[in-house]
């Protein structure tokens, strides 16, 4: 490890950079990154941050599995994803660093500011594992810089676990020439429930990190920012969903704790009572759905928040809500599956189960926000659709959006997003509970309390009087009416926008959170003259109109998704046995176009580099002229 003898400081201008703070779980990496990211955003930079979190609260320290950290990508312009690799890392020990090395997360020339105490530790075993880790990492051209992080922190606080993160923040502040006053304000905000002494100590730690960097480092980065021309908010996707729910006038969020969705309810629990609503923590996922449906049936548009395993449990209730046409918004923050899977990690594997995950035909709306800004607006949209069409709307975000932090234009709140008074006007004599419009399947919602509207909703097959009916034509009519609403809704949608030319050699189709990474990869390929475009779907059920026409203008169409698909050529895997990515299945069935897919389920967001490589590989693949024969 090189010790830097301070030479003249060289200032390198960059348009963007990616930084990792890598620590043991419980050492405060998230706070450090949160403040750094907010500071960059406030200075006008584009920002995207990604949490690296173990599933356990505090796994054994100083091991490759204890890694907790944060990646902050920030730049002069807009940043839409976590990028490829980190250019600079601060590591509190070599084991957590090694875990990042093994995941190929660090750039070949990454600058690593590493805790110095382990190299010379008195415990021989610690020195030994240190040396082995350094040996393993020597395959790369990393620039290691030894930093006495703990020693410096101990000069200010007694417990270094509560101080090293702020010292690290100070180093970053100096390296990237951040505005100290913004950092001070951020610290004051984050520790607003603590004493002034805590705030002062944290600021002192930051200053000491800055001083150390100034005295010992021979480089700084100049990352210019553009002045902000509009008001922006910066938050993660779960916070955006929570605030979106408030903006949409939702007064009931029924939930059961599940990673990575729970923090939506944390955010709501803190504020929703100031908005006339409550968070009800139910005894289980099923009950959470039931309470939400009960509240919605009684006139309040309700939200239930969950992730994949919870979705599985709610299935029967969601089908009931669809059957009795009670509006309901379900937020599924997807994680890796199946089963308990990867609780803290991203995957896009709930698409097909969201569309079809119950016995019987139960048409519902499924939408997938593509950015953190869309997380906010999706709640307003979802509520509107749920009420207008008396159905269930599933909003699919994922762990990437949930914990990623980005800034977006401050929404102009609209009073029409809020719920008006519950309709309690008397029901005219003769009005049936399901007065289905024969053409659209839509009907007036009758809410308990309305005089003359008494009827019993039932999950059994029923007629327009809500009377149980096993008559063949009655059952078919009910099916038709519930399904028709989706077609009516689809008629209000626009075809998706194409990023790039509207014709070419390859169209990449994504959905949800991958938009930023896909567009960056496509832009890279286009800059090299490749004829590739992309479109990112947000409406999955019903699908946006015009897809077949759009696809017909490209020689090849390929989905890019964070889920599993087989690779032809693997043992037993042929064109016949191959299982596709979930959107690919859907689009193939929907358009009869021979759509390929490139998918990956590493438990982390897709990197533009990997998508770019898949694009190049697909473009280089011969076009199939006829079924089963390749040129």
């Amino acid at each position, binding site marked *: 490890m090189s010790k830097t003898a301070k030479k003249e400081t060289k200032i390198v201008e960059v348009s963007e950079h990616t930084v990792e703070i890598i620590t043991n779980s419980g050492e405060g990496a998230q706070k450090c990154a949160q403040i750094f990211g907010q500071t960059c955003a406030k200075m006008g930079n584009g920002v995207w941050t990604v949490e690296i979190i173990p599933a356990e609260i505090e796994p054994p320290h100083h091991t490759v599995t204890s890694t907790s950290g944060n990646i902050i990508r920030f730049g002069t312009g807009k940043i839409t994803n976590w990028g490829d690799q980190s250019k600079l890392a601060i590591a509190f020990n070599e084991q957590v660093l090694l875990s990042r090395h093994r995941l190929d997360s660090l750039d070949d020339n990454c600058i690593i500011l590493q805790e110095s105490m382990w190299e010379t530790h008195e415990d021989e075993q610690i020195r030994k594992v240190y040396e082995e880790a350094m040996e393993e990492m020597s395959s790369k051209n990393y620039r290691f810089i030894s930093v006495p992080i703990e020693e410096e922190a101990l000069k200010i606080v007694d417990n270094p676990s509560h101080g090293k993160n702020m010292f690290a923040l100070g180093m970053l502040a100096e390296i990237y020439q951040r505005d100290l006053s913004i950092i001070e304000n951020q610290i004051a905000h984050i520790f607003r429930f603590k004493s002034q002494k805590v705030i002062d100590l944290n600021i002192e730690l930051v200053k000491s990190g800055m001083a150390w960097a100034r005295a010992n480092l021979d480089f700084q980065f100049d990352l210019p920012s553009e002045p902000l021309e509009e008001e922006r908010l910066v938050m993660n996707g779960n916070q955006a969903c929570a605030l979106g729910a*408030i903006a949409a006038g939702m007064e009931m969020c029924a939930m059961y704790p599940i990673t990575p969705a729970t923090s939506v309810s944390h955010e709501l629990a803190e504020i929703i009572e100031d908005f006339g609503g409550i968070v009800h923590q139910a005894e289980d996922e099923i009950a959470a759905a039931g309470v939400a449906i009960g509240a919605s*049936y009684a006139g309040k548009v309700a939200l239930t928040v969950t992730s994949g395993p919870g979705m599985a449990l709610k299935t029967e209730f969601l089908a*009931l809500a669809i059957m009795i046409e009670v509006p309901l918004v379900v937020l599924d923050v997807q994680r890796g599956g199946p089963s308990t899977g990867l609780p803290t990690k991203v995957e896009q594997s709930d698409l097909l189960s969201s569309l079809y995950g119950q016995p019987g035909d139960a048409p519902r709306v499924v939408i997938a926000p593509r950015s953190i800004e869309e997380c906010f607006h999706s709640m307003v949209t979802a509520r509107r659709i749920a009420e207008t069409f008396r159905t269930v709307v599933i909003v699919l975000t994922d762990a990437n959006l949930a914990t990623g932090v980005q800034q977006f234009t401050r929404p102009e709140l609209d009073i029409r997003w809020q719920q008006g008074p519950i309709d309690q006007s008397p029901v005219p004599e003769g009005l049936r509970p399901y007065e289905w419009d024969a053409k659209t399947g839509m009907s007036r919602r009758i809410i308990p309390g309305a005089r003359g509207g008494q009827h019993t909703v039932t999950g059994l097959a029923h007629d327009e009087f809500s009377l149980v009916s096993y008559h063949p034509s009655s059952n078919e009519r009910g099916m038709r009416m519930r399904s028709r609403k989706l077609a009516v809704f689809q008629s209000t949608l626009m075809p998706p926008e194409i990023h790039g030319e509207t014709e070419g050699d390859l169209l990449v189709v994504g959905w949800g959170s991958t938009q930023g990474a896909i567009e960056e990869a496509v832009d890279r390929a286009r800059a090299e003259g490749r004829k590739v475009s992309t479109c990112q779907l947000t409406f999955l059920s019903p699908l946006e109109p015009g897809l077949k026409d759009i696809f017909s203008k490209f020689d090849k169409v390929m989905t890019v998704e964070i889920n599993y698909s087989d690779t032809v050529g693997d043992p037993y895997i042929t064109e016949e046995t191959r299982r596709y990515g979930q959107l690919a299945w859907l689009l193939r069935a929907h358009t009869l176009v021979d759509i390929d897919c490139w998918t990956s389920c590493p438990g982390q967001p897709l990197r533009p580099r990997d998508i770019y490589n898949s694009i190049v590989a697909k473009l280089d693949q011969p076009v199939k002229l006829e079924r089963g024969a390749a040129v």
Partner: protein
Amino acid sequence: MSGIALSLLDLEADAPVCFEAEDYQRRPGKWCAGCGDFGALNAVKRLLAKEQLQPERMVFVSGIGCSSRFPHYVNAYGFHGIHGRALPVATGIKLARPELDVFVVTGDGDCTSIGAGHWIHATRYNANMVVLLLDNNIYGLTKNQTSPTTPQGYSSMTSPHGSVLPALDPLQATLGVSNASFVAQTADWVPVHLYATLQAAYEHPGFSFVRILQRCPKFTPDVFEQQIKDPNTTELLVHEDGVDPPGLEKLFKARRVHDPKNIDDARSLARRTDMLRLGVFFRDDSLPVYDEVRAVPPMTPQEKINRLNKVFERYAV
């Protein structure tokens, strides 16, 4: 249940002056002849007429099973949902609209088997509603399968050699839950007692759990044969804070004054198997009621927008 709905009713100038019990029957019940559910429906209708409840201000919530068809026959709003899940739906309705009167009708399979988790927690939430457990000791709608309350040794299609385990006692289970506030037992063959118990349950502010013993004429016609034939095997729990319907003194000689405030006595009486006991085992009107403790002041849309704009400031750059 009490309070708000009645006071609103008083304000309804155009409300019909008087509802008869039959006004609350929407259509005839389609249960088998001799089913105990008819008795429960009649008692409920009498209660609604006694309280003069507006049909549109009540919701009857049920799950799945014979008993869960109940809401179809009552002139009120009804929610016939999915198996075992009536209680969460009812909780949601009550949280959203505390002014509505909520009744839950459930069976021994629906409540004490598939819905057992919700039963425990709904008891603890203590939301203001009346819960009727129509307990006929058997799965009827699916045609004769053992339920948790089927007596040990009783045979069914799924236990042809007799149920192997002691029956689950819903009273003991409910009395064991923290914040349980009203637990009573009555029987379909004592309609006077059934009605009086429902009346007390309705008046109680909180989660009023009433187990109604009854027979399934098809599959358990004989489960309470001894008790019906010999009233001396039944003891009435009487108290001014519980029920003591007039006219039963002659039939039921065994009477015990039981103060329903006494949880230890209630649990001890529920455990005893020497006699069948009908009455209010436990009642405490002072316990936290979920829809009351979670009530928050309403906010106008404009106020909400103003407040949300303030919240935005925390995230503004």
